[in-house]
């Protein structure tokens, strides 16, 4: 599918993030599969592994995760200009559409069809995120990846059951990664 030889420009980064960000209802995590679909599969501007690395870095920084990931992606594609284009593209729908709904709030809040549509879309978002998690988790379900699978399950349990702060969980995951790497090296040498 990576036949696209289009080069990234500020305008394209802005328009693509703007379009994707307009569909990130239900929290924003759905932006990750959207970015993957557009930038990895369709445009071929970045590979899957790199996007996952940027997601990890974005997750461990303060602020809204999807803004961070968009900014990092912008930097990766076109430096500072790309980062600013991605930031504005990602933020604009959130600001403008909220300002718009602000005026129609009373109309919207009590409308059965609007809430039915959003309930349906939320179901779609839930399925899309589940689909992505299955795809991302699969490579870790192997014997040689047991320790990393443990990190995955541990991070889930710490955030879901124990309600630990997400930033704390992510920093711990990084530490465990470094320790696993160091122990692995020592075993190799021995």
């Amino acid at each position, binding site marked *: 599918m990576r036949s696209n030889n289009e080069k990234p420009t500020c305008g394209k980064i802005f328009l693509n993030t703007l379009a994707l960000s307009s569909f990130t*209802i239900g929290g924003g995590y759905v932006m990750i599969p959207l970015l993957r679909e557009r930038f990895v599969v369709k445009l071929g501007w970045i590979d899957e592994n790199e996007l996952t690395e940027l997601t990890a870095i974005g997750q461990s920084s303060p602020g809204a995760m999807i803004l961070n990931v968009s900014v990092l992606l912008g930097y990766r594609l076109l430096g500072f200009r790309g980062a600013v284009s991605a930031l504005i593209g990602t933020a604009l729908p959130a600001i403008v559409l909220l300002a718009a709904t602000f005026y129609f709030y009373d109309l919207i809040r009590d409308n059965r069809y609007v809430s039915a549509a959003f309930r349906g879309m939320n179901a779609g978002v839930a399925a899309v995120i589940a689909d992505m998690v299955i795809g991302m988790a699969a490579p870790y379900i192997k014997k040689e990846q047991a320790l990393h699978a443990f990190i995955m399950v541990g991070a889930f349990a710490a955030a879901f059951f124990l309600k630990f702060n997400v930033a*704390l969980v992510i920093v711990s995951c990084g530490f465990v990664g470094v320790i696993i790497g160091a122990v692995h090296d020592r075993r190799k040498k021995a």
Partner: protein
Amino acid sequence: MIYIKLILSFLLIGVCAFGGGYAVLPLISQQCVETNHWLTMTEFSDLLTLSQITPGPIAINSASFVGMKVAGIPGAFVASFAFMLPPFLIVSLLYVVYRRYGQVKPVQDALGGLKPGVVGLIAVAGLGVVIDTVWGGGAVTLASADVFSAVLILAVLFVLRKWKPGVIVTILACGAIGVLRELIAPLLR
């Protein structure tokens, strides 16, 4: 000056917003409801409803809502950009570090640990959306589950795994199914 107050408050929220999403809400409520009295508690819960039906991160939605309420549309932009500035600077710094040291062994090891961790955290977020959709924020019991939504999620997941339709098309189709259900429901009763 109201703008300066807005900027200072949301810069502070941006700096402290570690963990993103719902982790930011207590901070926003403290700044906007308790400290500055920009919102009442009722308005704060309205804000949560609104951010559910508007795209984008909840923190940006909140900043826009508060800015809008206090100083109109310019306020919405000022508060949102104030919130985004500190994370933008920190992320820029991290990117420089990543570019320079990204291939160094300990950094690769750390990223190797972060990546499965992120998968776990995305699973938590996804499960949050599932619970919100099937139980609508109420108590999570078998009896109070919205069976239609639960079946819809599973059916869509099956379709996604099997035929890999586009993400946006999928979400829009689900919205249409939701409306259709609301239209048909009275006829079945």
